[in-house]
């Protein structure tokens, strides 16, 4: 019966499915192609860009790790992304809670300040960030990228968590207050257990955005590259060697892709829903 309905649906909508397939193909073909190139030899690549690899080669990845210092870039990216995501989510929960559940003088003006923060381009901050962090002797250390990325992730995260806290029914909070909860234990024992999906979505968005960050990483870590910057620099030297570049591109995008695929429902809701509502 189920199978029957499935075919019925496919027959009735085949034109729409075909159209979707075409656009899906266009969206992912280029990426599939560069990943395939990563498993080819130079000679294999010359057989035509559309062919599957004759045999699956892993030399390109080995070369990345040995010659391209990609192990270092990878480690840098990981060491940076973990505190950035954790720190931003924690701070955003706290300040989102402040906006969503407290009335205090200046909250309106402060909320506009945070709104400004989600639309400012990093180009508006990058120059002073460089000179201020240089004065502190932090350039090329992990802190030079971790701290600004947290500070610049907080506005979006705050508005995001604010949206969540606003939705929680007031009765829940009232009940906890009657039970003698402090604001802290109301947050910790009542609200956070409910906030799981919202926090997960936020973590997914912040992971992908900050993992992919280029400008700040380029400027603030001028010799101690993250993966995207390392890949861009690597490209300068290995312009013609598409298979090795493909391997580098694959390594750089896979972590973002994995986080996205696992959390895609949350992720898409994050972008299509809350982000810039009114």
């Amino acid at each position, binding site marked *: 019966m189920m199978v029957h309905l499935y075919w019925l649906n496919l027959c009735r909508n085949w034109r729409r499915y075909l159209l979707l397939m075409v656009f899906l193909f266009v969206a992912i073909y280029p990426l599939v192609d*560069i990943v395939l190139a990563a498993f080819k030899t130079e000679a294999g690549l010359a057989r035509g860009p559309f062919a599957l690899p004759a045999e699956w080669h892993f030399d390109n990845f080995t070369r990345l790790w040995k010659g391209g210092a990609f192990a270092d870039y990878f480690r840098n990216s990981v060491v940076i992304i973990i505190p950035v995501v954790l720190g931003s989510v924690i701070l955003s929960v706290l300040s989102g809670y402040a906006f969503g559940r407290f009335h205090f003088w200046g909250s309106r003006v402060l909320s506009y*300040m945070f709104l400004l923060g989600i639309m400012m381009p990093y180009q*508006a901050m990058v120059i002073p960030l460089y000179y201020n962090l240089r004065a502190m002797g932090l350039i090329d250390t992990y802190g030079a990228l971790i701290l600004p990325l947290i500070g610049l992730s907080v506005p979006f995260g705050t508005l995001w968590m604010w949206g969540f806290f606003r939705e929680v029914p007031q009765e829940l909070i009232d009940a906890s207050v009657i039970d003698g909860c402090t604001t802290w234990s109301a947050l910790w024992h009542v609200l956070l257990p409910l906030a799981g999906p919202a926090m997960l979505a936020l973590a997914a968005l912040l992971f992908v955005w900050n993992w992919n960050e280029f400008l700040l990483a380029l400027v603030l870590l001028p010799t101690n590259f993250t993966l995207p910057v390392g890949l861009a620099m690597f490209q300068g030297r290995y312009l013609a060697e598409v298979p090795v570049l493909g391997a580098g591109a694959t390594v750089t995008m896979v972590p973002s892709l994995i986080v996205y695929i696992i959390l895609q429902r949350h992720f898409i809701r994050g972008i299509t829903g809350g982000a810039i509502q009114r």
Partner: protein
Amino acid sequence: MRQEVRWRRNRSIAGRSGRVGERNWLGYLYLIPGLVMYVAFGLYPLADTVHYSFYDWSGFGDKLFIGLRNYATLVHDEIFRQAIFNNFILIFFYTVLPILLALFLTVLMTARPLPGMTFFRTGLFIPHVIPMVVVGITWRWIFSPVGGPLNVALRAVGLHDWAKAWLGDFTWALPAIGGIGTWVMYGLCMVLFIAGVQNIDETLYDAAKIDGAGVFRQFRYVTLPGLHHQLMVALILTSITALRAFDVVWVTTRGGPGNSTMVIGLQMYRHAFPLRNVGYAASMGIVMTVLILVIWVAILAVDQRLRREWA
């Protein structure tokens, strides 16, 4: 019971805790850690950029106050004018094209939700989560004159004259970069619009059909008003991305050939770091920020008006 609450509230005022949702200084306590980080690494540097933009400074030694002269120089800077022009061309490719394309496709798929949509949605969205550096490298290969898939495909279908070094061509480099932007953005717009269309009340379409509305008028009077929020989000997201463009250009053309693909972000980077015209670069950063603000406000204003008209 009420007595009990009041008592606890009194105790809380005495210092142990505060009642959530009331006028309460405890809010500041929760706000401060995040606010401090944001001010230190967001707002303070922004103010500093404004400050720098009034100075002539090489990044070392003394700053020389020159008032608005950096901005005056900008107006006559041929390369910067080219960059702004290019950014607006990119808006066409990042914003107008993907939105029109996505609207067209959404109309073709209107109303009836399709089983398996999650699969398509996930796939269509992928270009948006890939690092721009990877996107740039991928498309550099696609456009490559030596064995790149695009040129191979063009030759295969007999269009030998069309095959060219896309990113090295004065005429075609900018549209090629724009095309990359269209590719990144159309999936995002489609996902947005399809989600929006599924929220439109189906009876509206039925009513329109009964009134004899054809496909076009259904689109004009039902779909478009129903999508106004998603349209606004798409407009803001995509146009801001177009104005901020940096990574893609850095990886594909570095602004070349000549300055034919120069954008504000790249020109600012060049002046700030390799060339060390720090104050001048800061003024470019401010111009970009103001442009983004203006576009944001304009879109919100248009949205307000349309919402009133369509309501």
